[in-house]
């Protein structure tokens, strides 16, 4: 017995390293190295053509300089609102759709599922362009259709108004991505064993209360995963805003989120020359924000979620 454990312990288990190597190598090359490259870049600054180490000076500028900090907080605030729209609108709708779709008596479920999921696979550029056209006050179908039902007076050029533009874009994004929470929840709902449902029915729990009391607790872990995916996705968002509103995220930076702010700073725009160091600083802040969010989820929420084994 003793000799056997000693024998199984002593040889180095090469196969583990060999099997891990490709993944570790590629991941390090395309994810970890660039990440540290970005963090490093944010600690330097080019002064008179020479790259110098400046410590956390770039971060001081970002938070201390009234203009930089105003832009940053504006972008972060908009980003938070963007996230809230998704959490309040996209995920509940996704869950509701999944609950309806998983109803055994629903006909054409596969058709609805596909139709709702299709926008998710569309390119951002297509989505941005389609919605710009739909909402166009000149040639759009939105003003025309609202006119048909007598609501023309409710129409405003939403994408051009400071107070509506970001919310409109948030809802467009919800339209595009509502398929993802729907699919995940749908899968979670299908994996609930029939015995559990039958037992509930035996106890007289049916209909809505069955959803609230039996199904919802069972899909909570899936909802948690969706929330964190939404969070990461929203704080990395850039494409939709860029394709619909341009790099200046107008009107008056009302739709500027961290992604567009980073793009403008890093690559420059029009006469503004790019500033890779300040850009990297913003990118680092985005990384820290997302890291903090994910940590809160992992340690504070996920550990408390109750899991059920069937």
């Amino acid at each position: 017995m003793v000799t056997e454990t000693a024998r199984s312990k002593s040889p180095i288990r090469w196969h583990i390293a060999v099997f891990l190597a490709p993944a570790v190598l590629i991941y390090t090359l395309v994810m970890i190295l660039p990440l540290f490259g970005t963090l490093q870049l944010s600690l330097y600054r080019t002064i008179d053509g020479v790259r110098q180490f400046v410590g956390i000076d770039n971060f001081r500028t970002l938070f201390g300089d009234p203009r930089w900090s105003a832009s940053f907080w504006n972008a972060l605030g908009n980003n938070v609102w963007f996230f809230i729209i998704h959490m309040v609108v996209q995920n509940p709708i996704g869950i509701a759709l999944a609950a309806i779709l998983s109803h055994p008596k629903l006909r054409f479920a596969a058709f609805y599922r596909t139709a709702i999921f299709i926008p998710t696979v569309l390119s951002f550029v297509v989505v941005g362009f389609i919605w710009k056209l739909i909402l166009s006050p000149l040639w759009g179908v939105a003003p025309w259709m609202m006119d048909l039902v007598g609501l023309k007076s409710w129409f405003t050029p939403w994408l051009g108004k400071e107070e509506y533009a970001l919310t409109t874009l948030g809802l467009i994004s919800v339209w595009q991505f509502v398929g993802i929470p729907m699919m995940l929840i749908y899968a979670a709902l299908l994996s609930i064993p029939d015995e559990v449902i039958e037992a509930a029915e035996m106890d007289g729990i049916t209909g809505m209360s069955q959803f609230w009391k039996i199904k919802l607790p069972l899909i909570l872990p899936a909802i948690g995963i969706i929330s964190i995916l939404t969070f990461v996705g929203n704080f990395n968002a850039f494409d939709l805003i860029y394709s619909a509103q341009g790099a200046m995220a107008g009107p008056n930076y009302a739709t500027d989120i961290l992604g567009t702010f980073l793009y403008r700073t890093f690559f420059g725009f029009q006469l503004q020359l790019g500033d890779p160091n300040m850009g990297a600083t913003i990118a680092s802040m985005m990384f820290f924000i997302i890291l903090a969010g994910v940590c809160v989820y992992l340690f504070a929420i996920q550990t408390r979620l109750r899991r059920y084994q069937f």
Partner: protein
Amino acid sequence: MRNKLFLALLMGTSVLGTAGGAFAQDATLTIESWRNDDLPIWQDKLIPAFEAANPGIKVTFAPSAPTEYNAALNAKLDAGSAGDLITCRPFDASLELFNKGHLGDLTDLAGMENFTDVAKSAWQTDDGKSTFCVPMASVIHGFIYNKDAFDQLGITPPATEEEFFAALEKIKADGNYIPMAMGTKDLWEAATMGYQNIGPNYWHGEEGRLALIKGEQKLTDPQWVGPFETLAKWKHYLGDGFEAQTYPDSQNLFTLGRAAIYPAGSWEISGFNTQAQFKMGAFPPPVKAAGDTCYISDHNDIGIGMNAKTKNPEAAKKFLSWVASPEFASIYANALPGFFSLSSTPVKMEDPLAQEFVSWRDKCKSTIRSTYQILSRGTPNLENETWVKSANVINGTETPQQAGEELQKGLDSWYKPAK
């Protein structure tokens, strides 16, 4: 391996080079450019004209995509593989190339005397001592109007601001046309076609622009806030939902004949000529009172310079002198109506709309966009901020005074005018 390949390449080029040399004493010049739209014009018109007059020099036009041009050019210049002649962007992008030693000094080039100081300002060092690109073309701002609509309503092109707003009011009252086709969604329309279009009449062109650079005037002064005040009044004459109207929307509105006036840049001419089914005319930005000196934005857009490391500096200079000549100006301006020669010698153009635009140079004083030289070097960038503020003022979300104050505050944060 790489060394060997390099060596082989070297051998190859040297053999080919000597072979070519033995064949003829030709010097070959390659032009770097972002204007790939102009390739046919260069190949069919400009280069044959030059080669006919200068036997022994061969010219190749080698454009790249506009969005890639700056990056590709920088890489080629650093690697020493760039062409002999470089098409120059205006202001800081080219100035940086000159400071790095990539562009040759052309101050004493024969033909430079054909250009005014304003024309050369886009390709000069800040002190104006060295010029490094030959000015090729500029774009002029003004208003293009639907002649049929004006005739129908009995309106003549307005000369003063009062007449301008009276005309807008009349078009609006009639209701058949949207008075003016402009949107604020893309921001730059509001700044470029709005603020920079009408502004020079307020700040008196070069006088105000230079005073701003010297720090003698502020963006909060009446001559700089004035254009914003006028822009704020435009709001009532723009189409429904102009806040979400994009640049192509505005172009389409006008060329479809739904709008009467289009605040324009001359680069629109060739596009509008093919799209619009009605007669068009143009008028310069209206002045305050009849008889005032008028000022127009005649913005330098394209120049051409010499790669400092070219192997054929003599041939390159010969070509550049030719670019500076009236002959080049005439061919170029006629092939591309809307891109006007910067030469002081008047150029005869066939296109009536282009003629109208360029005729303003005689009666008005020219200036360039106020934000382009020096003032957009820092962060926040004055040009980009002007986009946002102009759109805000037209949208009515900010007053002209606030806009001026914020722009000045942003400029003050990094720009210290030389005393």
